[in-house]
């Protein structure tokens, strides 16, 4: 075994030359491109962080704008509600005033109608009373006439009714005022009766009626007025 110092020297130089070549053509360029990429990545990260911060600021601004919009919307809604409430109140007041006016007018109209109706009713009542009085008074005889008319009415009754009245107990003559003895005699003579009683009944107004416990014969102004009123009522209803 021998050690070749020439080869040793050549190899020593060769390795150093290779070191220089690799440093120049391999390690330095690759390290530089890696460093450049890392720098670019850092720059991209920095830009991304800046963009993130900008986005955060924009988000906060948007949030602030949203809050402002919300507040403005609330204000607008509140104002609209207030305005609507005021309008509603005004409309309600106007409606109430109009209703009160209508009610007042209607009340006045109704009162006028009632007043007019009362006047008309009063007029009709007066006319009716006038008609009734005129009809009743047109048919009323004097004192002796009532006795004659009572006798005719008694004669006009059917026999059984006349017999029932005449045979009834407590047979009497009713007059609105006490009859004098002459009037009593005239009445008994007209009826052909004797020994009957007399009584006073002011509700008859005028006239002379024959009464017993089994019936009566009407012959008075009150009865005539009553019949005339019934007839007028039936006439109005028809």
């Amino acid at each position, binding site marked *: 075994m021998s050690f070749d110092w020439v080869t*040793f020297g050549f190899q020593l130089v*060769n*390795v150093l030359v*290779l*070191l220089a070549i690799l440093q120049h*053509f391999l390690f330095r360029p*690759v390290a530089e*491109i890696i460093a450049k990429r890392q720098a670019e990545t850092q720059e991209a990260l920095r830009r991304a962080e800046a963009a993130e911060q900008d986005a955060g600021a924009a988000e906060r601004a948007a949030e602030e704008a949203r809050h402002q919009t919300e507040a403005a919307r609330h204000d607008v809604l509140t104002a609209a509600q207030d305005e609507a409430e005021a309008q509603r109140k005004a409309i309600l007041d106007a409606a109430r005033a109009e209703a009160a006016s209508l009610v007042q007018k209607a009340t006045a109209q109704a009162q006028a109608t009632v007043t007019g109706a009362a006047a008309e009713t009063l007029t009709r009542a007066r006319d009716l009373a006038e008609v009734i009085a005129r009809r009743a008074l047109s048919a009323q005889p004097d004192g002796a006439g009532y006795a004659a008319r009572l006798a005719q009415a008694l004669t006009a009754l059917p026999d059984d009714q006349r017999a029932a009245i005449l045979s009834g107990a407590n047979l009497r003559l009713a007059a609105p005022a006490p009859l004098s003895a002459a009037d009593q005699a005239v009445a008994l003579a007209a009826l052909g009766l004797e020994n009957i009683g007399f009584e006073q009944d002011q509700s008859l107004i005028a006239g002379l009626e024959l009464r017993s416990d089994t019936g009566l014969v009407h012959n008075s102004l009150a009865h005539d007025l009553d019949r005339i009123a019934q007839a007028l009522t039936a006439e109005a209803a028809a």
Partner: protein
Amino acid sequence: MIQSPLSGDILFSIGPLGIDKAVVTTWVLIGALGFGSWAVTRRLTLRPGKVQAVVELVVTTLDAQIRATIAGEPARFRPLIGTLLLYILTANWSSLIPGVEPPTARLETDAALAVIVFVATIAYGIRAQGLGGYLASFARPSWVMVPLNLVEQVTRNFSLMVRLFGNVMSGVFVIGIVLTLAGLLVPIPLMALDLLTGAVQAYIFAILALVFIGSAVEGEGSRNPPPKQEKDA
């Protein structure tokens, strides 16, 4: 007749200097590595292609290994450690080419590598700690250790040289013997094993060089020394 692996093979001479086959092989490797590096790095882009990505991965891994061993910026040690790793690796794997003997199978080549590591260790140590500080590091942990530390400076580089030489030379020698005895295809498994051995040896040499430099730079030893690599290899 098998040629002794310990003997040189002078191809030609330049004046009085005989040019050994290992030197020529190294020149070819230098040319190949230099051309390959130039071809790969002449058009580096920020968006790397496949080849650039592989090269960047190698450099990044190398930096990570340096950073794990020595604190600080790895760029100071990258050229030396990277050159040792790539040269030894390509030199070991050059045995796959028929008729080519790896330069690392020659003691002169390994000795040159060991001397470079030895000198680099001293240079980095003085540069980092100053001459006084570097010399004072030999007295740690006690002045009694000065002779041992001085001897260690030589022996560990010597073991570095002998380890690489022994592993590569023995592989070449065994393959030569098997090739002589069994023909063409039989040595293939051994050649595959030689590939693995060559890669492992390149890694061990580079890492140990890094550890030596790290111990010199940091004074009290490297930060994360690989456990027992020097003795086990």
